[in-house]
């Protein structure tokens, strides 16, 4: 005996299959998303670093941008001042020379005064060229140090994060330590300005 049930006309079974398929797709997608999360985009900052986008005052942001551009100018100038025979490296231009070229932030103009009136000095130690800017008003902008490597034409990245020359900040009217390397600056409470790229960066 073969029993044959006559099913009612309607789309119940098709609907069930469609819902099952939809559920399966959803479950697969949920599992895939859950098992393969995107890596954490935000890299935690080291204690001696400060974020250029979120942690700086307006004046500091302007100075930081100017210093990044000035680093390339200075590197080009060092290369231009190099003796033709190539026996030694070029001389680093003094802040006064840079101010004479009206190169911000070294130029003593109204915006420099508004940004804290930094007094810039040149310090050279070994292969490192450093321009230290002593702030007159740390409440507007802290003191800054631009670290350049003489050999690297300004493009190299001996100082860190892959985003140009090393620029260090300390919110005090305080000269940098005698030894201008990362460890000494960090030990003296200076913070390196770094740019981090997170999911929130749109440009």
């Amino acid at each position: 005996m073969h029993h044959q049930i006559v099913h009612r006309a309607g789309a119940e079974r098709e609907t069930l299959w469609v819902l099952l398929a939809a559920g399966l797709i959803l479950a697969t997608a949920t599992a895939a998303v859950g098992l393969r999360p995107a890596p954490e985009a935000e890299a935690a900052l080291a204690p001696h670093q400060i974020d250029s986008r979120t942690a700086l005052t307006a004046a500091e942001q302007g100075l930081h941008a100017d210093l990044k551009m000035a680093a390339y100018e200075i590197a080009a100038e060092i290369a231009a001042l190099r003796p033709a025979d190539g026996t030694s490296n070029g001389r680093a231009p003094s802040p006064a020379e840079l101010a004479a070229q009206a190169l911000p932030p070294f130029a003593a103009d109204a915006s420099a005064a508004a940004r804290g009136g930094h007094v810039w000095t040149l310090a050279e130690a070994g292969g490192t060229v450093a321009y230290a800017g002593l702030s007159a008003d740390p409440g507007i902008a802290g003191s800054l140090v631009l670290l350049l490597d003489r050999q690297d034409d300004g493009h190299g990245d001996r100082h860190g994060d892959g985003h140009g020359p090393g620029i260090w900040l300390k919110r005090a009217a305080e000269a940098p330590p005698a030894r201008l390397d990362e460890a000494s600056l960090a030990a003296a409470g200076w913070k390196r300005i770094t740019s981090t790229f997170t999911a929130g960066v749109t440009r």
Partner: protein
Amino acid sequence: MSGMGPSGRRANGPAILFDRVDLTLGRTAILEQVSLAVAPGAVHAVVGPNGGGKSSLIRALLGQAPHRGTIRLDWPGDGGREGPGTIAYVPQAVEFDRGLPLTVEDFLAVLCQRRPAFLGPDRRLGYGEALARVGMAGKGRRRFGALSGGERQRVLLAQALIPAPDLIVLDEPMTALDEAGVAIFETLLAELTAAGTTILWVEHDLAQVRRLATRVSGLNRRLLFDGPPPEMLSPERVLGLFSAAPRTMAGALAS
């Protein structure tokens, strides 16, 4: 309409079981708690007034209505070796364009064969023989739209014979038949019964039912009676079945 399942011939038709079948379309209750058993090989007639749910019962049996309850076909055979057999269906009438350039053979080909009808009728299926059985021999090339109502009804009977059915569902087949057609129908019924085919037959001609059916059920939304025709088709029952207030009669008749 025919040709559901393989065309294998078997000794006996299936039993049909309707168990508490409900059918509601919109808010209209068409069938209510219809429980009915059709024995294998029976000529089971279903009678009732217009709108009583006879055709809906057939549609539910053919799986074309959103019914509730169980409808089960019990096919003979050992554990489904053969599976479901052939179910044939003869509709009350066909709606079609009379101007259609369609011959009788084409019409049968559309209904009966798997091969596309535009490639021509499949000779192996024996359309000529089936037409001969309903008294339409030699009329296979006639235009279907040019047939009379009785001839068309015979063609509808012929399509049910291809392939040989195990269950044949007839929806008022005698309505359009002429006298000669009625005689042919009776012969056909006898042949099918002899072959063991189960016949479910919706009919309003009570005299024919009394003469030809082995069992009769009265249906007017509910099943009002079910039994052998001589006892069931008493004047009182028939009056109750066709009266305007079947609901009040239903209880009295069922008891």
